[in-house]
């Protein structure tokens, strides 16, 4: 009898989630059991254990391995969403959006496009901020923007599919102030539009400089850019 009830509950759950394709980016699948408080406590303990990750390892941006593992508010919320196995709820989404909005800083002279050819190099480069056993040396080489890892851009190179295709980005959308701001926000902190997205916060987390963002934007929008050819 009890087994029957359990099966019925699972079927009902499957039905309610069947029409829903998103479970929050990078999250558990619907119907999986959320972890216990004990599991979460042990995961935190192991994350910061002295004999686990190298807590004192120096990082390129300054600070240590421990700092990299320490979560900010957005990361904590988005971990909870991932562990829930459910799509993000409206209240949580609003909170993540608000945190993102507060994080975005705009260039003093307004949003401008930089050099698309430099942007192309940045978009292709996966270099930068990697540490583990072989830390990237930022003094020898500029960190990249890693765009091609997840996005298709100019089609002469193969991009990933974790993010949507950005081929012909500017050609399709034009370059109004509104779309420039939208794209700038997406690069600076995409959680403002897609709360708990897989995409990194390149501006808010200090991965890209203001100039680098302008160059990547040029790669997306400049009519001469290979993205739009």
């Amino acid at each position, binding site marked *: 009898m009890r087994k029957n009830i359990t099966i019925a509950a699972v079927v009902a759950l499957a039905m309610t989630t069947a029409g829903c394709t998103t479970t929050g980016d990078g999250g558990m699948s619907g119907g999986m059991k959320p972890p216990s408080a004990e599991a979460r406590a*042990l*995961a935190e303990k192991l994350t910061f254990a002295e004999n686990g990750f190298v807590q004192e390892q120096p990082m390129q941006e300054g600070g240590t391995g*421990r700092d990299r593992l320490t979560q900010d508010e957005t990361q904590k919320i988005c971990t909870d969403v991932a562990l829930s196995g459910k799509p993000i709820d409206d209240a949580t989404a609003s909170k993540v959006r608000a945190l993102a909005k507060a994080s975005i800083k705009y260039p003093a002279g307004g949003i401008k496009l930089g050099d698309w050819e430099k942007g192309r190099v940045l978009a292709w480069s996966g270099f930068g901020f990697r*540490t583990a*056993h072989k830390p990237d040396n930022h003094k020898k080489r500029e960190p990249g923007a890693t765009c091609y890892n997840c996005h298709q851009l100019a089609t002469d190179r193969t991009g990933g599919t974790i993010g949507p295709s950005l081929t012909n980005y500017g050609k399709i959308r034009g370059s109004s102030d509104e779309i420039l701001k939208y794209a700038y926000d997406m690069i600076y902190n995409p959680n403002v539009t897609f709360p708990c997205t897989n995409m990194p916060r390149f501006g808010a987390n200090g991965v890209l400089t203001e100039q680098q963002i302008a160059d990547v934007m040029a790669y997306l929008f400049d009519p001469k850019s290979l993205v739009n050819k």
Partner: protein
Amino acid sequence: MLKKILLAIPAAMFAVSVQAAEPSDSPYEVLTELLSKNKDDLYLNQSQQNLMIMPDDPALFTAEEGEALFKEKRGPKNVSLEGCDFGKGPGVLKGAYVEMPRYFADTDKVMTFESRLVHCMVTLQGFDKKDKQVKKRHGSGSDMMKLTTYIAMQSNGMPWNSRLDHPKEKALRDAGEVMFYRRSGPMDFNCATCHGQEGKRIRASVLPYINNPAEWTKAVSWPATRVGQNNVRSTFHRVRGCLYQMRYPNLKQGSETATALISFWTDAARGQPAILPDTKR
């Protein structure tokens, strides 16, 4: 041509010796059967080239060298590893690899295969952890990779079945699951960023999905020859590579933190046949 024949002879000899030990197929046959059941799977079917290499996988030679090392009297105590208990009794290798990580009463710890092998080399054979035989963990030329490939191969084709009987086994598996979804670092990545959806690619590479056990068994079937690196690589080598791309600090080999992650990822392949050794990009 001559090279091909020379490669084929030891591979054929090896296939015979494995058959004698177990009604098992070669790793190539295990994989092709998995592929035949999952014909449309993008991850599993992404490399015909690797499949063609597999019957002559250099890892088969690495395993042969491992067998010799396993049986050789070595270390300050001049004993072989045949007395090592990988969880199924001293010297029992068949099916041992796919049941790890598991709890060991003699150390009161959940151990990965790698940490258990180190334990035996130190306690049984008398090696020091700093001796190169133990310390050198990566590359087909290392004793550790030779031994690992040989021992893992004795579980080829068997279903992944990491133990979850002891409370410590279950606790680490569950903590590993939380860590898989825990987001941090400058890129906000967790493991699920890449492995939380099916059929997605990083650049040209199709990624395995954690909730698809048929994909996941190939994902966790290490040791495997990484064709692009021309070396046999281990489970930990893969985990380290992921953490590197995730912009995480270095993870210490043999740590409980590593065991937790490996416990979860092995559990995710439960019941699916292990491909040992595998061939990967």
